[in-house]
């Protein structure tokens, strides 16, 4: 069973070598060029240049205050960036405001630390509101697709309930379904398991691993090192608003180059 069938046709699993003679270059889905971000006089991001190709699962890690959440939020312009930098989604520059920005945001799924399900709408409505109001789907069609997604993240039984009646893990899985309902090109996860009780972390990570296996392009801000190793194609280590390391998970965890990365790994892997 696949979470998100249409991605299957677009990409091959990362573990397989491409057949000889075909191009290994995948189109860049997210491109950040010279991205800087100030909050007043505090510089949250400094000279970020990143390209995330289609199908890649990029794990962003770093100590708190390192700018990793800010980085994630700039990609769909929940945070603006300083003049001079640019962010492109599938080749298209992020517009400043209005309808064009909304359209591009619909292509970028976002999962928040605090779930942010619409509190006054049922689980089902949370998933159908985007397809109906943004994409103009008929209610019956949106409901059918939403139920399929809810089935796959394992919360179809709760479709008629309100968000506050669900556990944190269930709410976060609904939030993933809500984002997937828009058929996004890329999914952003901003510390999706940080607000969860420990026993609920795994059920959310399982859904994310499955999504990664199906070839979804993902940017995941997380402290879950197991997930990073299991599903990540790439680890981006940030500190004080800069990208310090950008490598594959195995290299990062076994042979970090920077002192700060070693220090950080030492702290989180010590116990």
């Amino acid at each position, binding site marked *: 069973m696949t979470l998100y069938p249409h991605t299957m046709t677009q990409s091959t699993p990362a573990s397989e070598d491409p057949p000889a003679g075909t191009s290994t270059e995948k189109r860049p889905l997210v491109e950040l060029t010279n991205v800087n971000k100030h909050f007043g006089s505090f510089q949250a991001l400094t000279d970020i240049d990143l390209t995330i190709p289609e199908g890649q699962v990029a794990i962003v890690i770093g100590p708190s205050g390192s700018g990793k959440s800010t980085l994630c939020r700039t990609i769909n312009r*929940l945070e603006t960036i300083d003049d001079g930098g640019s962010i492109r989604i599938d080749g298209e520059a992020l517009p400043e405001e*209005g309808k064009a920005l909304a359209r591009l945001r*619909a292509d970028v799924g976002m999962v928040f630390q605090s779930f*942010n399900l*619409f*509190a006054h709408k049922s689980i089902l409505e949370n998933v159908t*509101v985007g397809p109906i*109001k*943004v994409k103009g789907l008929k209610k019956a069609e949106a409901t059918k697709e939403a139920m399929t997604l809810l089935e796959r993240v394992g919360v179809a039984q709760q479709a008629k309930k309100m968000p506050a009646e669900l556990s944190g893990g269930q709410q976060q899985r609904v939030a993933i379904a*809500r984002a997937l309902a828009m058929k996004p090109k890329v999914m952003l996860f901003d510390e999706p398991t940080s607000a969860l009780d420990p026993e609920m972390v795994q059920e959310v990570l399982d859904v994310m691993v499955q999504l990664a296996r199906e070839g979804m392009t993902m940017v995941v801000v997380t402290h879950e090192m197991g997930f990073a190793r299991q599903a990540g194609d790439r680890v981006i280590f940030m500190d004080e608003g800069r990208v310090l390391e950008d490598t594959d998970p195995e290299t990062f965890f076994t042979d970090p180059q920077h002192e700060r990365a070693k220090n950080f790994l030492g702290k989180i892997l010590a116990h």
Partner: protein
Amino acid sequence: MNGFFELFAEYDVLGAFWMNIKLTALAAIGSFILGTILALFRISPVTSFRTIGTAYINIVRNTPLTIIMVLGVLAVWGQLKVEFFGDFDLNFFAYAVIALSLYHASFVCEAIRSGVNTVPLGQVEAARAIGLTFLPAARIVVLPQALRGAITPLGNTLIALTKNTTVAAAASVAEASGLMSTMIEFNPDLMIYIFLTIAIGFCILVIPMGIVTTWLSDKLAVAR
């Protein structure tokens, strides 16, 4: 007490209260619509809309209702000759409804804005992240939650509006407080009873509003 009950035959007390109810109902609708629009102005991402909203609130909320009512009747009708209806009474009734709506819209706006403050920022971010623009995000996600959070201050505004309909007497509308003055003028010996009658009448109108407000704010509260 002599002659008290005869007053009800002589004067149309219920009809006067009915006028207050009509003023309340129409001005409640008018001020709710205008207040919601003003609230949208106040939370808009566009600076000039926010400025317009803030200016309206600061000017109208800080002007006494009587001044607005008299301004309408003396200046707009008296000098500028703006007439909504040919019928004299109906025309002044319209003026009273408009003045009450304009004035209370500023309080409705602030009540809704206090409700908007009860909606976590994450709700807006989630709405925008699925591709909703400002107005749909406001209509589908923010306002439904904000209104539920604003029921108590909205109820208080409705109660104030109900009592403020008595100011319509300044626009010659035949409502309860105007009738009270007339009754007292011709029956000064019954002054206390007349006064109590009108006061109790307003209590009967207003007390259920408080009860319904409390009940609704419990029933419709958004669980988070």
